[in-house]
């Protein structure tokens, strides 16, 4: 769902989190939203839907992070999850070549279904395990560049790179939202009217006359 309530003063973005089972998606969001890792004191009962409020260059941003089930058997359900999302974080485990292949599949699918409307982030997680690395950074980075995505290296365990990843993603999504707003011409008051593809502005003023007509008759 495209951003911006009230004329671009604040944005709300939906970000989906994609990646195979054990790549550390959950640890990553928990680190980001609760700043905890494998902690006994994690307060939240769930790590599948988390929100974060940000303030970027004076603009309020509400970030909703949607975790997705990573098991292969649920792969076909992807489109239901990432429908209307502004960004996607595709996570792989740098020690697991397979998980990187999965990311490539996701990218292909996302580009096919959503075109360029979505900001993609490819994330190599678990860089603390560099000695077991199976996916080379160069390969991953060049791949990311080739599909118009950005590549990040993170470690949920060491709390490295995660803050930067989400901040960067937000900035990119804000840009995209502003571009979209401008291209629509009349950004301003009509927020989020893109979703339905119908301009109700014409329809709506007709309603009061009907009411008025009835009341006079």
């Amino acid at each position, binding site marked *: *769902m495209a951003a911006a309530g009230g004329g671009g003063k604040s944005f709300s973005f939906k970000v989906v989190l994609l990646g195979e089972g054990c790549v550390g998606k959950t640890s990553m969001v928990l680190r980001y939203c609760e700043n905890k890792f494998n902690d006994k004191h994690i307060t*939240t009962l769930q790590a599948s*839907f988390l929100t974060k409020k940000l303030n970027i260059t004076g603009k309020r941003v509400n970030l909703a992070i*949607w975790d997705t089930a990573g098991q292969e058997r*649920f792969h076909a359900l992807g489109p239901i*999850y990432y429908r209307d999302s502004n960004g996607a974080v595709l996570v792989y485990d740098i020690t697991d070549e397979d998980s990187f292949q999965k990311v490539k599949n996701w990218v292909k699918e996302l580009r096919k279904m959503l075109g360029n409307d979505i900001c993609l982030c490819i994330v190599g997680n678990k860089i603390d395990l560099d000695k077991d690395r199976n996916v080379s950074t160069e390969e991953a980075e060049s791949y990311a560049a080739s599909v118009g995505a950005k590549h990040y290296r993170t470690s949920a365990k060491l709390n490295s790179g995660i803050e930067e990843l989400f901040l960067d993603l937000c900035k990119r999504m804000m840009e995209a939202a502003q571009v979209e707003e401008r291209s629509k011409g009349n950004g301003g008051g009509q927020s989020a009217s893109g979703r*339905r593809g119908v301009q109700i502005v014409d329809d*709506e003023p007709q309603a009061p006359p*009907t009411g008025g007509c*009835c009341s006079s008759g």
Partner: protein
Amino acid sequence: MSQKTERRGIHVDQSELLCKKGCGYYGNTAWQGLCSKCWREEYQRVRQKQIQDDWALAEKLQREEEAAAFASSHGAPAQAQSTPPSSQSQSSLGPFSKFEEKKTNEKTRKVTTVKKFFSPSSRTSSKKDSPEVKTSSPSTSRHASFDSDQVSKDFADFLKSMQRPGREIHKQCRSFLLSMSSKKDLNAEEVSECVQDFYQGLADRLTSHFKGSSESVEQVMDQVEKYIMTRLYKSVFCPETTDDEKKDLAMQNRIRALHWVNIQMLCVPMDEEIPEASESVVKAITDIIEMDSKKVPRDKLACVTRCSKHIFAAIGSTKREPASADDFLPALIYIVLKANPPRLQSNIQYITRFCNPSRLMTGEDGYYFTNLCCAAAFIEKLDAQSLNLTPEEFQSYMSGQASPQFDRSRLAADSDPAATSPALAQLRRNLDLLSDLDARQEALMEAARKLHAELPAWSESVRREVRDALEKQPLTLSRPAVTDNADANELPPQRSGGPSFG
């Protein structure tokens, strides 16, 4: 009247069978002695009156509010201004009541369909609405719209607190409902489009004209949704123009056919042996079933959210760490399979079509709803691979030729109700202990009885032995034991077997 009815059983007078209105047609006791045509007129009259009352109530509330507003700004003209709305209510009555009538007819037709039996709420509501059942007195129809009356009243009360925007909103909502009643030929998607456009238009208007903050606009939109959708529910939930009903039944059967899917196949991280977990599972199932009984999309959505929270609680008490989507989705699928919620597809469609999009597309509720959609899609497409089974296994389970318990002990454990409930298991254990105790007690009693029986025999045998001994060796000689030589001489010669002293 009742006497007459009794007499009728024996003797039937032709004139008594005719319509009481005297139109010449036959009447029916179910219709209070009227013929079908007169009954319908009578019924419509009462219904019209009720609708009129509804409107009058709404109008009264609005008039009060307007009067108050005008009194404060214009003083005297308030009286003059307050009259037109009532005439408006008269003119608007025509099409609206027809609309109501059509809905009722539709409802009546639908009552016969199977799916009505799946939902207790819809059953009761259809009972209240259908003229067939309501035969005793048309006045009971008052209850039919009690819900919507209450909602209208709440809505009016809510808007009252808002002064000018409130009036505007009320007007908009009413004219929208009116316009919807005249557009009966739209298909479900078009109706959805209209409602969504209305939401959007109203929200935009509130933001731009009345400079409402996004929170207050949200609040108003929630109330608007509640009002509008309670009014429209009957005509737009599972409408006949769609195949929602067919899909519902297909889903129902599908889930029934999948009754053998267990928690292990879905790899759900929930252990139902843990009391808290199984309690949460039960609550989650209750919530998802309850969804069907709500009328407002947002209330339905709230049921899904509550269900999800219970699932997280169940996972939490099993795993002791935050649940990720990897855990949650399989668990939700499991819950849906266990619950087999009534009219699942219709509800999903209804929420998708008529929920306020801001709530549905972002936010936590939206996330859980999306997962529910995923669960439904997964169940529809579920095959051997998605359960890690071979196609043969899947086939035989689906056809009911085999059941997925892997070994004998597992089978025994599963068919045993104690396996599913820890309380039962405890009970069973206690019973075992008790019966063990009982058996031991019994054995003890038996031994005691035996002892008791043996006791006389034993004392008898002792006595006999003593007697024998006495016979063999009379005691008379026991004293002189010390003087052996003298004794030996005095005594008669000893028998060889006796206790020897020498």
